[in-house]
């Protein structure tokens, strides 16, 4: 008896204190997507291909000039991935100042959470071909009071590289995150999170943005699955089963006697 009680006590205390250290250590760096310039963690995320609102080449052709945009989230962050490529023959002076593949990645986007707009400002900086660069991410409330909500100094990463098989083009890939806690917004069930690059202050969504046309969006769904009910029903069934067993045992003993 004492041995059993002692075992329970040891087990419970071990569970509480050992797991504290183990699980905290494992889950500390458990974001679904790491902002580190390694884009492999986006491989499994479905994306949206949108046409760019800027010409792909000097003639204004937009053939095959697309941006692959991916959105995701977890309990801590909303994540954005933008993959696009440019033709070096194009007049892209606002992005690439010289032909030695030198890119300025200072850009602005808008994110809508259940229809509410937020402006995203990517930090200043330049990056050369084959190199990566971390940048800061700032987010402000885009309507009403212009309230600055998020400043994440290591919130984004950009990488620039030549497109394989076509040295006249090169692509740059962004990934950045927005802290849900700093944003202080509850994402309602069955709501939409979308990204645009529209600079218009009225009717943000649906307009051709500065960098791409339209919007990339995800729909968040969620609801309680009611686990407490099944836990309670389990207790009832177990108790009912135990009562049934006692009755049956008594009955069979009486019959036997």
């Amino acid at each position, binding site marked *: 008896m004492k041995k059993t009680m002692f075992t329970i006590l040891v087990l419970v205390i071990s569970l509480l204190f050992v797991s504290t250290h183990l699980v905290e250590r494992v889950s500390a760096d458990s974001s679904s997507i790491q902002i580190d310039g390694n884009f492999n963690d986006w491989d499994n995320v479905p994306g949206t291909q949108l046409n760019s609102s800027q010409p792909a080449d000097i003639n204004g052709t937009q053939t095959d000039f697309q941006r692959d945009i991916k959105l995701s989230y977890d309990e801590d962050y909303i994540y954005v991935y933008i993959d696009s490529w440019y033709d070096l023959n194009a007049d892209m002076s606002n992005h690439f100042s010289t032909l030695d593949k030198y890119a300025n990645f200072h850009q602005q986007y808008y994110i809508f959470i259940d229809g509410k707009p937020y402006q995203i400002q990517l930090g200043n900086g330049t990056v050369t071909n084959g190199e990566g660069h971390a940048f800061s991410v700032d987010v402000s409330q885009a309507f009403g009071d212009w309230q600055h909500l998020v400043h994440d100094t290591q919130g984004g990463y950009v990488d620039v590289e030549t497109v394989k098989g076509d040295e006249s083009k090169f692509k740059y890939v962004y990934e950045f995150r927005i802290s849900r806690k700093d944003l202080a917004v509850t994402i309602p069930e069955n709501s939409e999170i979308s990204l645009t690059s529209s600079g218009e202050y009225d009717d943000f969504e649906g307009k051709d943005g500065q960098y791409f046309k339209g919007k990339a969006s995800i729909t968040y*769904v969620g609801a309680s699955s009611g686990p407490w009910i099944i836990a309670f029903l389990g207790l009832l069934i177990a108790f009912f089963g135990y009562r049934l067993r006692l009755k049956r045992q008594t009955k069979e003993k009486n019959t036997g006697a």
Partner: protein
Amino acid sequence: MLMKTIILIVVLLWIYSLSVFKRAKLDAFYFLMGSLGLFIVLVLWSKPYAIWLFSTIMTWGVGLVGDFFGIFSTLPLGHVIQVLYHERIILMNVDYECSGIVETAAFVSLISFYPVFKVQQRLWLALTGVAFIFAANIVRLTFVATSLHLFGSDSFFLAHSILGRLLFYVLMLTFYFTIFTRGQLIQVASQNRETT
């Protein structure tokens, strides 16, 4: 630290009350106090520490089914199930309530103090229960994700809150019934046969 100290004191009181019920041979009270106490301890423990682990394993398990059928994909570390409905991307989060942790804690608590089974039987049944709840939850989440893939986010309420829940409840109640009533009645019958 204060929280841990409080939990420790409550655990000590709980263990003392268990020893009282055991010595007084009040099996029903021992079972109720034991299973409820362990359930509360497991739920308190799981809130800060085990949710991440359960949600990750559950999302990974659902992801295996999704990858096999090619209907949906998952991000296990983010606890996200990603479903493509035509051109739309629907994300579903495997959170605390969805992870199966409450049901698992409830079953383990009940089986740990159920006065019928021997220690070895309890251990095997607990393991079987954990595996069954895991599998049943995968079936439920696969059903919800498949509905989203076929009918879009408008079907979510019906698929998740009604049909999915119903499916899970039927599976769980069948399991509980098998373990706590049918299983032990068979055991009683065989015990009586042995004694006669």
